[in-house]
């Protein structure tokens, strides 16, 4: 079976059970939004999928490969990328260094950086995604919030991942920057990737998601295609 | 259970010193200083002779000064009969003595680290103060320079390397030197007088910079031997070996070696081993209530190549 599958995943921190046994499957070329109130467990679920938290029980498969108990770095190697809410960027480093963070291209010996190759590839990738940044030598901290978000997304997309996880991708953005980020998310879906996002902003969720999963107190409340539900129903599920 | 053992050990550790009687505490200066090493040997030899085990306390570093006070206070808690201190500064020394005196502990000063007048004014009753007068050391060095130049109208160019700012030996030795020099060689020119904070490399850098400005420098007087040895290396590096007279203070082994090798001209020594030996003897006498001289000035000896080669001066037996 292809796709990403969670089977009876549970997670607790000490005595607090954050995730009740949860089974979900995600298809390629589909955007799934996970919504819910604070403390619903949606962020934890995302981090379990990214390999940052280990589940207490259950299994995660990606295209029939078992990912459970692999580290975050191994998840990345298997093609699961996460875009963090705080972006996890090195703000004093330039765009190229951030795009290749942890996966720098080196020449054959002594770990000498191949800066020209990285700059070239960074430029191509950003062009392909339609992200415009005047100077790739700019420290990332000097860019606008939307541009920083775009760099974080481009980094996740750079090594052709199978799964992209977004934690609150639009929460910190000004209204005019949201559109661009949603476009980038759609673009990833069109590439045939599994896209999963956690968000508080229902407007953005309805604008981009194909499927909406509502969670409450660590449980699955509803799981419906976006077309088959409405804002008021989702809100009702979240609150009720 | 384990915890109980620890507490018991800790208690034993705290209580234990109070069990001993007639304790003599000597608060030294930080280790790493050969002068105080010799002084320590003097104390130990005299103690051995008297069959006493003295307690020696050391600050980790001389730079912080405050450590002296901390050591003093922990010395007081051990309730010794006498505390003898080689203080880093006069004010801290006096503060320590006051607190000790209030507990009925005798106090004394070794190595003339505090001013006896100030002690009197502050109501501190020093059993004795032994050491060499720092101003006298400077004067002795100046007299040595003057003797070398013979002619009263000679105008040598002189660099003075001071010790730490605020420490009596660091400042008083240069002061004595300058004062005596002005009367013996009125035309002498002091081209630079800077503090190297007792640091070898700083002294070296100051010397190198001064030689740049004054290539025909004649004399370097450093407030201790370690700094003088730094100056030796700077003079050597500038290719002026043998052209500059270098005088240090203390007579530490390395300086004696340098004097023998002709790298240094002289070292004024106040015979630290002698001071250590006498300070211990005086401490024992004071505790036994014997009458002793309140101030004792240690003899000075100018160590030159000739003095060392002849090996006749009786004071040389105290040079360690």
């Amino acid at each position, binding site marked *: 079976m292809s796709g990403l599958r969670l089977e009876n995943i549970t997670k607790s921190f000490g005595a607090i059970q954050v995730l009740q046994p949860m089974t979900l499957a995600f298809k390629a070329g589909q955007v799934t939004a996970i919504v819910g109130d604070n403390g619903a467990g949606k962020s934890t679920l995302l981090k379990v999928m990214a390999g*940052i938290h280990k589940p207490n029980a259950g299994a995660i498969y990606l295209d029939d490969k078992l990912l459970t108990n692999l580290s*975050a770095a191994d998840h*990345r190697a298997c093609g699961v990328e*996460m875009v*963090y809410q*705080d972006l*996890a*960027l*090195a*703000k*004093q*480093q330039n765009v190229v*260094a951030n795009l290749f*963070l*942890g*996966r*720098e291209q*080196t020449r054959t010996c002594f*770990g*000498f*950086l191949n800066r020209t190759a990285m700059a070239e590839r960074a430029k191509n990738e950003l062009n392909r995604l339609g992200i415009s940044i005047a*100077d790739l*030598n*700019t*420290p990332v901290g*000097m860019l606008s919030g939307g541009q920083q978000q775009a760099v974080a997304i481009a980094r996740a997309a750079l090594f052709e991942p199978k799964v992209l996880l977004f934690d609150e991708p639009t929460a910190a953005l000004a209204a005019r920057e949201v559109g661009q980020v949603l476009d980038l998310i759609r673009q990833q879906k069109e590439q045939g990737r599994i896209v999963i996002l956690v968000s508080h902003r229902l407007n953005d969720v309805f604008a981009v998601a194909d499927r909406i999963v509502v969670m409450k107190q660590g449980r699955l409340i509803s799981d419906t295609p976006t077309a088959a539900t409405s804002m008021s129903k989702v809100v009702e599920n979240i609150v009720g | 259970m384990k915890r109980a053992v620890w507490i018991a050990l800790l208690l034993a550790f705290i209580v234990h010193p109070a069990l001993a009687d007639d304790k003599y505490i000597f608060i030294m200066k930080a*280790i*790493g*200083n*050969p002068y105080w*090493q010799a002084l320590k040997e003097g104390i130990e030899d005299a103690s051995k002779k008297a069959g006493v085990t003295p307690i020696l306390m050391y600050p980790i*570093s001389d*730079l912080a000064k405050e450590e002296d006070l901390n050591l003093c206070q922990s010395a007081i808690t051990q309730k010794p009969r006498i505390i003898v201190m080689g203080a880093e500064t006069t004010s801290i020394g006096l503060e320590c003595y006051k607190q000790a005196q209030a507990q009925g502990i005798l106090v004394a000063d070794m190595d003339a680290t505090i001013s006896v007048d100030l002690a009197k004014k502050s109501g501190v009753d020093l059993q004795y103060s032994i050491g060499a007068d720092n101003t006298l050391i400077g004067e002795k060095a100046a007299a040595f320079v003057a003797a070398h130049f013979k002619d009263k109208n000679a105008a040598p160019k002189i660099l003075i390397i*001071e010790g730490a*700012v605020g420490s009596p030996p660091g400042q008083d030795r240069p002061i004595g030197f300058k004062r005596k020099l002005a009367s013996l060689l009125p035309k002498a020119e002091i*081209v*630079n*007088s*800077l*503090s190297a904070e007792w*640091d*070898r*490399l700083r002294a*070296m*850098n100051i010397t*190198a*910079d*001064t030689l*740049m*400005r004054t290539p025909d420098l004649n004399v370097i007087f450093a407030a201790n031997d*370690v700094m003088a*040895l*730094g100056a*030796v*290396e700077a003079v*050597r*590096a500038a290719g002026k070996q043998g052209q500059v007279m270098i005088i240090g203070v203390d007579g530490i082994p*390395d300086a004696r*070696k*340098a004097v023998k090798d002709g790298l240094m001209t002289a070292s004024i020594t106040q015979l630290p081993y002698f001071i250590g030996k006498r300070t211990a003897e005086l401490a024992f006498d004071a505790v036994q209530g014997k009458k002793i001289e309140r101030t004792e000035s240690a003899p000075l000896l100018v160590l030159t190549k000739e003095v060392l080669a002849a090996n006749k001066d009786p004071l040389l037996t105290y040079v360690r």
Partner: protein
Amino acid sequence: MFARLFTQNQNRLYIAQCLLFLAALGAFFSLASPYFLSLGNVNNVLTAGAVIGLMAIGATFVIASGGIDLSSAGVMAFCGTLCAFCLQKGGWSPWLALPFSIGLGGLCGFLTGFLVNITEAPSFIVSLGMMSVARAAAYIVSKGMPIYGLPDNVISAGQGQMLGLQVPVLLLIVGIVLAWILLTQTQFGLHTLILGDNAFAAQAMGVPAGRVRLKTFTLAGIYSGVAGIIFMLRTNSGDPTAGQGYELIAITAVILGGANLFGGRATIIGTVLGVLCLGVLQNGLNLLAVSTYYQTLFVGLVLIAAAFLSRVRSQR
């Protein structure tokens, strides 16, 4: 235009500021003293800067990675004393004694890094501990007494010239070039800066944080070790009390050179300029025979000026 420069390349701007400051100091002293610009004096400034310079370069890596190394002066004294001991008391060949002492300096740094990794304590605390341990090791090796008078062949080589440069200056230059290559051209250098910039991001993105930290501290230890050797060669002695307080001067030079004290931004060129600023100031004031009281005042004023610079820097 200025604002643009500001946002485009911070590092270059900070280096330009530092250069400007150095040039101002240089201009002032060359007007005030005719000896300042002489070849011999330039040589003096560089030789005098070698010990602090090498320690500062080592510290640059640690600061770049978001740590702080307070052990450098202790390690420096330990390595110099140990090497003098091996040469003089042990009769070792310098070809054995020098690499051995420098290697033990690296080991001190490695231990600091290792302890920071396993305790997850601030490197400030761990390196403070190592400072005392290394200083104590120097006392133990030398029994608290300076070791004076090294073999003639070592001293004449160490105080002589090589390729037309004083040996300390030559070592400093080699150290600068190697450090520059490591920090700017290798994956390790980039990882060091990223770790200092955002430790969480570094870890999440698979940067081997522990290994990078270990390497930065080991490098700092090696550089302190070489500094200790230079101290030993210049002063012809292994002095266990050598260089008390130098670790702070080294860190000051790094910050003066535009590094971020909390990590993520540091350049070797900036550090070298920072060292030169402090060295030129000291040398110039010595040439002018300014008394110690006022020298201390001027050094303080320069540091306050540097603090103002960094305030301007943070207002981007």
